């Protein structure tokens, strides 16, 4: 039993990594080389938040940090800062996860939205303090807004299609038994 759940753990970690790689791949496709004044959601952050609140063991901080650092390097962002902020945010969410576990979805959404806002705000403040060129405020805000809006869809997809659900007290898996 232990072996099988360890296999599943590493499988799910691999799945998380490959989802991140797929997102990076999709964003890198040379489809829109024209600037269009629209910023889509940062799906990777939404994904990390959703997994951390459901199955923290599938999305360890090292994996999240490494993935977003890679994205930082590839997307021409200042490397490291965004990754560090997202790791801190996911750790904070993880600490609050036991309280959120028994509640419905809206409080969770609110908490995640607050965490994301904090990440974006601190990111901009640090960049401004260190006099780094940064994106227009409107675009940044739009991206934050889209990420918050897309979060329920990401959660729905993860829980229905990928089986990343909250552990409930009666779950077979929580007792160490696989069906």
């Amino acid at each position, binding site marked *: 039993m232990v072996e099988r759940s360890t296999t599943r753990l590493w499988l799910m970690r691999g799945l998380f990594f490959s989802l991140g790689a797929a997102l*990076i*791949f999709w*964003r*890198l*496709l*040379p*489809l*829109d*080389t*024209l*600037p*269009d*004044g*629209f*910023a*889509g959601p940062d799906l990777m952050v939404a994904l990390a938040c959703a997994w951390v609140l459901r199955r923290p063991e599938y999305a360890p*901080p*090292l994996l999240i*940090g490494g993935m977003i*650092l*890679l*994205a930082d*390097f*590839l*997307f*021409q*962002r*200042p*490397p*490291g*800062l965004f*990754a*560090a902020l997202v*790791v*801190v945010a996911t*750790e904070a969410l993880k600490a609050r996860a*036991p309280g959120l576990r028994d509640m419905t979805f809206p409080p969770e959404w609110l908490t995640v939205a607050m965490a994301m806002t904090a990440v974006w705000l601190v990111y901009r403040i640090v960049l401004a303090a*260190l006099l*780094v*060129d*940064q*994106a*227009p405020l409107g*675009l*940044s805000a739009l*991206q934050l807004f889209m990420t918050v809006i897309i979060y329920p869809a990401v959660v729905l997809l993860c829980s229905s299609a990928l089986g990343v659900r909250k*552990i409930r*007290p009666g779950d077979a898996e*929580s007792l160490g038994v696989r069906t």
Partner: protein
Amino acid sequence: MARDRNQNDDFIGPLRRLLVSVLVVSLLGIFLLWRIDSPRVERFRAKVVDIVVPNFDWAMAPVTGAVNIARDFQSYNRLYQQNQELRDELQRMKAWKEAALQLEQENARLLDLNNVRLDPRLTYVTGVVAADSGSPFRQSVILNIGARDGIVDGWAAMDGLGLVGRISGVGENTSRVILLTDTSSRIPVVIQPSGQTALIVGDNTAAPPIDFLDAPTHVRPGDRVVTSGDGGVFPAGLLAGQVALDPGGRMRIRLAADYERLEFLRVLRDYGREAIDTPGSLIDPGVEIEAAPPGTDITSEAADG
């Protein structure tokens, strides 16, 4: 279950927290290192791109192709109308082609009469666009040619018609082109009939504004914008686009390159100009001439003009 977890926390918790803080501190350390010693980290970034993007390459080309086919499919319902338009356009273009051929012959004759030598070193390497910047805030593309093909930072990239951007960041097999529309792009240009110099300042829109114009009244919408070669950034005379007025009355440039479909880019080899740094023996015989004899300087000067 809950108690179980708490017990686990007792001995794993502090260690985990320590590891997480080490992770966060090292990530912030990378950021600070980037802020302090940007070129070194940017070189590292070019290396990362160099390793990652070619791995994606086998999948990127078909997926991009498929998406583009799907997009083209939407325009198939206007096919007949488009065909008619194209025929009309072709007819008009034939007239222009005739004119261009005559001009080309005339130009060749005149060049021959004047004994002009065009710069033979202005050749190019063509690369395929492998990826874009992946971020709505930055405008750049990654080409599949790099240091292996002799690409050097700062060279100009063009599509068939107009200037697209400049190389910034070269890996072994890949290189990044910062597009003219990126917020960090500044290109010195000259506006053709009036000869005014200006800067094209990228601002993340499709039509970058023209800035630092001396006498805007001499410039009209429709004037040609070409690179000026000032500051040794680019060779002079590359077409960038046309002047246009935006609704706010600001001068912008309508780019000549087709930014919607950047697929193949030419990177122009540019080895800089030879500088004349000795006074020459005729003027001052006391000075020893170490560099090339004055004769070559004169020819290179003529080639530049």
